[in-house]
């Protein structure tokens, strides 16, 4: 082992350091480099938009500042077939948060539902909205009380908005969908502890 980065040679580490410095000085937010079997992503802490489209820059490949769609931009270099052994300085913790307005659903917690709760399911497939409009507060938050006819969310399909009633009276214990996420018919949207049941 020649240095702290294990599998990388001194020369490779020097080049990486150069790239980090170059990115730091540049007006770009992140850099992705794909050479042969290695992919390197460096970020200044601002994650690239999830839906950013790859724009091939003529004559710039392979080592170029090319915005690419990426799942989660952390500064990590991987080299196949050996497992990732090198980690460059971590981005600020905030960078790990999903970009605001990103459409890719975050991994959903698979915690088992609280005993005695009922599910409010999506009556149809469509886009889930927790608020009547972007500037308003959500219809309901965790801990909020709903009656059977309370509107808990909107589901939009083909420009038609459907106000979804709770269908059950009680207290919301969990919200299981994110704004602008595509939900399937029958998917659980909320969990409710029915009124009258022991807390």
């Amino acid at each position: 082992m020649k240095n702290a980065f294990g599998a990388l040679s001194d020369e490779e580490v020097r080049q990486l350091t150069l790239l980090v410095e170059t990115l730091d000085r540049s007006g770009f937010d992140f850099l992705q480099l794909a050479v042969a079997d290695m992919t390197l992503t460096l970020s200044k802490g601002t994650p690239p938009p999830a839906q950013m489209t790859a724009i091939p820059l003529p004559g710039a490949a392979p080592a170029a500042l090319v915005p690419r769609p990426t799942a989660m931009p952390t500064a990590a270099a991987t080299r196949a077939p050996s497992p990732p052994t090198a980690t460059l300085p971590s981005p600020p913790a905030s960078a790990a948060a999903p970009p605001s307005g990103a459409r890719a659903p975050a991994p959903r917690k698979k915690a088992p539902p609280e005993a005695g709760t009922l599910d409010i399911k999506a009556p149809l497939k469509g886009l889930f909205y927790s608020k009547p409009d972007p500037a308003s507060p959500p219809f309901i938050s965790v801990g909020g009380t709903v009656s059977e006819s309370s509107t808990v969310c909107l589901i939009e399909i083909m420009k038609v908005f459907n106000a979804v009633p709770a269908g059950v009276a009680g207290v919301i214990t969990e919200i299981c969908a994110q704004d602008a996420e595509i939900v399937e018919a029958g998917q659980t949207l909320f969990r409710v502890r029915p009124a009258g049941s022991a807390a």
Partner: protein
Amino acid sequence: MPFTRVLVANRGEIAVRIIHACQTLGLETVLAVSEADRDSLPARMADRTVCIGPSAATQSYLDPRIIVTAALGTGAEALHPGYGFLAESAELAELCAAHGITFVGPQPDHIRRMGNKLEARTLARLHGVPILPGSEKVHSWEEAAKIAERIGLPVMMKAAAGGGGRGMKVVTAPGDMQRMFTAASAEARSAFGDGTLYLERFIPNARHIEVQVLGDRFGNVIQLGERDCSLQRRHQKVVEEAPAPAITETLREEIHQAAVTLAGKIAYESAGTIEFIVDQDAKTFYFLEMNTRIQVEHPVTETITGIDLVQEQFRIAAGERLSFSQAEVNFTGHAIECRITAELPHEGFRPNPGRITAWNPPVAPHIRLDTHCYAGYVVPIFYDSLLAKLIVYGADRGQAVARMRDALAHFEVGGIGTTLPFLHFVMGHEDFAAGRVNTRLVEELIAQMPNGVGATE
């Protein structure tokens, strides 16, 4: 024409329609597409495309700055907004003007005055055109409930910023007010970027009759006759025809005159439509709104007049004088349009997007089909459910109805449920055949239609 390259700022069948008009006029086309529409039929027809953002319309088709940037970036000198989306955005028209792009539509001032439905009502009243009892802006459901008490239930909630059925709800019971208000306001905001609502008295036995007008910048305003659009579901038109059946010639002429008066008073420029509601019990008509754009149902007027309205829009935008006078407009025969949508009639016209596996439309000399669909096309969930407009021509209404019925029977769509079986049922129904139509006929007919016929998925 003073422009050679046009940005088509729309999608679906109307994008196909506009591109076709441009090709006929020798204009180059650039189509603005969202990520969901990059491989669409109009995208393949256009000379080039420009991706304007993600699938959600609010982040692509509904952002005027993105649209104008796309036009500037691609060197487009004119912009056609189609219908829906930003077609009636004064902001878009103004941005175009500010950046030297010809907006293929009316002047920003026309859009602003008529686009605000409340101001349009005031303008109509000022010029002696009758309007329905109603309200000004309504800010909350509680306020709406108070107004409803004054003008009497049922009332219709409407979006101040637009038409097309978005943000429209009929409230018949006071208990429904809160839920309806919330849904209507959200719908209006999504469709027009403005959730403001107002109320009008709801006329139960109503016909929806509208007049097509054309105006140039020299102050010439003419009408191209009326269309009957009474068959609606969810306040969106299902079947349209021209001329309107079973109305007196006196009423027809009064409606035409009211339309020309209103459009003339504001020196309207481009293609526009003045919508009226005809109360069949009281035998009176009221101004509803003016749409300052090309309408979905424009082909029925084109069919009976032989005038290409989209091409006329381009000529007017180019500063040309109308090439025909009112006396030179001839009406021949009868035309009907059926909107074929991805919806399940028996489930409250629930939207039903998905992959089209088979697409075999009818072909005949009297048939016109405006569509962006084909076998293998995936209908996205993000946009409205219109798949195709089937238009037939007949020497008279009877022949047109019979031909439409036959055409619908020979239209095969596989993979997704559509309104085809329902439309076929309507064309065979005695009430429609006799011209006994009103805005509630769809509901009545759906109840009569044998179940199972339309339930294909």
